[in-house]
Every structure is written in C-alpha cells, then in structure tokens.
C-alpha cells in the first residue's frame, strides 16, 4: 500500500489551509473529508475574515475550495474517518470506504452540531427540524419558527430567519442572550423576534411535520406553535475516531503551540482542538501552523 507523507482529515478552514501549505511544500499528501468548507460553509454573513469586509459562508467556503483545487490536491470527499492508529511504524487511517497509510496526520475534523436530546428531535429531523439555517432557512418563508439557543450561532440563525419567516421565537435556556453585542442588538431590534429566556425545550411535536414545541420556564410548560425548529445549542468535536490522542473534558484534542498532540506525528488544528477561540480565521491560521510543523517533523524524522 502507498505510504503518504501526510493525511489531512477534514476540509474546513483548517484542513484546506493545511492543504495549501502542504501543496506548496510539495508533500505527497491526501485530504479526507465528509464535506467541503466545514462549519464555514454553514455560516451566514461573515464580516471578520480579513480581506473580506463582507462575504457569506458558502462563498468563503467556495473560495477555500477553489484555492485547494488550484494545486490538484488529492481529495477523498464524502469519506468518513472511523479509526486512526499506529500500525507497522506508520499511521493507518481507516474510513468507511478504504484504508490509507501515512507518516504523519493532521486532524482538522472540526465540530458538528450538538443535538437537543429531547423526544421528537430524531423523528422530525428534516421534517421541520434542522441544524442548518443557512441551508434550510429559505424553506420557511412566511412561517413561524423557533431558534433554540442563545449564543452567536443562534443569533446568526435568527438574523437569517427574520428576513424569511413570519415570526422568529428564540428559546434560550439562560437568563439573557449571549453572543456578540452587535448581533444581539440586531436581533433584539427586529420586529418579528420574541425571546424566551430561562426556557427549555422539552419536546418537539407534530403530525407528519413539526407543528409545535413544548417549552418549560419558571411559570410552567406551554406549547409554542411553530412549523420550523432550528437547533443552535453549540457544537461537539469530531474526535472520537482518534482514540489514543489526548483530549480535554470537552472532547477537544489537546495541542501545544506547534499543533503537536501527545502522539509524535499526529498534529491537530482548528475547532477540533483545545485552541482558545473558535473562529474561521483562527482555524485557517492553525491549519497553516500545523502544516509547517508537519514539514519540519518529516524533515527531521527518520523513516
């Protein structure tokens, strides 16, 4: 079996930036990813990625994709990594389709949406309940919807939906909305938004499609009639496949300033790591750091 210099797991901002740097260092490498663009592709409006005063998430992801393709990078798309382990002195990356060998690995597999874990969530997924306002928001034109969550991603979803839906209800389990001040002001200033603080979703109900959610606050339980539910309660790292790699209590991979993990030869970058602050521009920067660390590692190791 062929042994690559490097396998990059993930093609979000971190993985793609790592691929650009690796291509320019002429490494023999492979990118394996379920999707392209990662969470950036799911973002609404982006106004803090230097060089773009305004760009949408899908457009920025498209720019990243084009940049990666410029180097004819070998990409295995729609493949999910199931296992990463050391085997005969190299790393074995096992996906749902094949096995690959490599001398080094960059884990840049990012995060995915956290689920509510309430009755009705699974049954109504894609039947009114979704984790991607950017994707599915336009389907809820003139309907009543609920956004679950109170952080930046919930505010982002709400801001996309105020332009589409009739009524946007934000269900937040904390006493007040969090997130950036500028986004909070926009949300609170919108005419068709109602915020339910200190409220928890206890179930999603309906017939064939979502019809309502049950929410609970200090005064009791009530039904909120909605046709759409957008779950934006945070994220969990895609790190389970890396069993031997050390993680923190949130499941994020522990890295040092050089993006090294506890296993020599395995590096990590972006939102899947314990890097403070999860931002597109930070993930991209981390991806470049990881690739340069890999280059140094390969140059100084004996294989």
């Amino acid at each position, binding site marked *: 079996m062929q042994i690559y210099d490097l396998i990059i797991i993930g093609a979000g901002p971190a993985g793609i930036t790592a691929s650009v740097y690796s291509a320019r260092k002429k490494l023999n490498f492979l990118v394996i990813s379920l999707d392209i663009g990662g969470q950036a592709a799911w973002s609404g409006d982006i106004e803090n990625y230097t060089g773009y005063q305004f760009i949408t998430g899908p457009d920025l992801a498209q720019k990243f994709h084009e940049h990666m393709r410029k180097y004819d990078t070998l990409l295995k798309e729609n493949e999910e990594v199931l296992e990463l382990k050391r085997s005969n002195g190299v790393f074995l990356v096992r996906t749902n389709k094949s096995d690959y060998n490599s001398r080094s690995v960059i884990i840049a597999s990012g995060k995915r949406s956290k689920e509510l874990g309430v009755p009705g969530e699974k049954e109504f997924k894609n039947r009114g309940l979704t984790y991607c306002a*950017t*994707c599915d928001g336009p389907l809820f034109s003139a309907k009543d919807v609920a956004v679950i969550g109170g952080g930046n991603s919930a505010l982002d979803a709400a801001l996309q939906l105020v332009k589409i839906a009739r009524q946007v209800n934000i269900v937040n389990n904390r006493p007040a909305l969090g997130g950036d001040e500028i986004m909070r002001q926009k949300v609170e200033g919108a005419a068709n938004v109602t915020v339910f603080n200190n409220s928890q979703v206890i179930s999603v109900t309906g017939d064939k499609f979502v019809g309502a959610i049950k929410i609970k606050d200090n005064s009791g339980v009530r039904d909120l009639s909605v046709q759409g539910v957008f779950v934006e309660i945070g994220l969990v790292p895609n790190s389970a496949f890396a069993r031997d790699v050390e993680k923190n209590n949130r499941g994020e991979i522990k890295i040092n300033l050089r993006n090294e993990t506890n296993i020599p030869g395995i590096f990590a970058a972006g939102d899947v790591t314990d890097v403070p602050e999860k931002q597109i521009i930070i993930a991209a920067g981390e991806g470049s750091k990881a690739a340069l660390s890999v280059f140094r590692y390969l140059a100084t190791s004996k294989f």
Partner: protein
Amino acid sequence: MSKSVKVYSTPTCPWCIRAKQFLQENNIDFQNIDVSSNQQAVDELVQKSGQMGVPVLDIEGEIIVGFDKERIKQSLGIS
C-alpha cells in the same frame, strides 16, 4: 438518451452547491429548482421526498435526498 435531472435547492446550502458542481463536472444537464421564496416548489419537494431538507435530486423519478454521491453516480451511470 440522458436522464432528466432536477435539483431542488436553495442558493445558500453548501450541499446543494456541491451537488450542482458535481453534476456540472460530469457534464450532466439538470434543471435547478430554487425552492427559496417559491412555495409551490417547496410543496413539490415535500410531496416527492416526504421531508424538507435540501438538496433533493429527482433523476427521472428516482428521489435522492442529500448529496449522496454514490447513489447519484449509480443512478446516472457515472464511473
């Protein structure tokens, strides 16, 4: 004869963009149906696929939900 292909999509969904790109890369002609602000198209999407997620591909009556590359390849005979 090539099969008729319809893609129900929104302009912003990343998987829709990938699905359309994939068809273009393989020189497959398709009709893009933008379901945003088109309630009739939404109803059609829901009726055909029994769900509300995009993209949905209608390949001569075969309904594929999501960017399922393998199924799309199989259905269109792309190697």
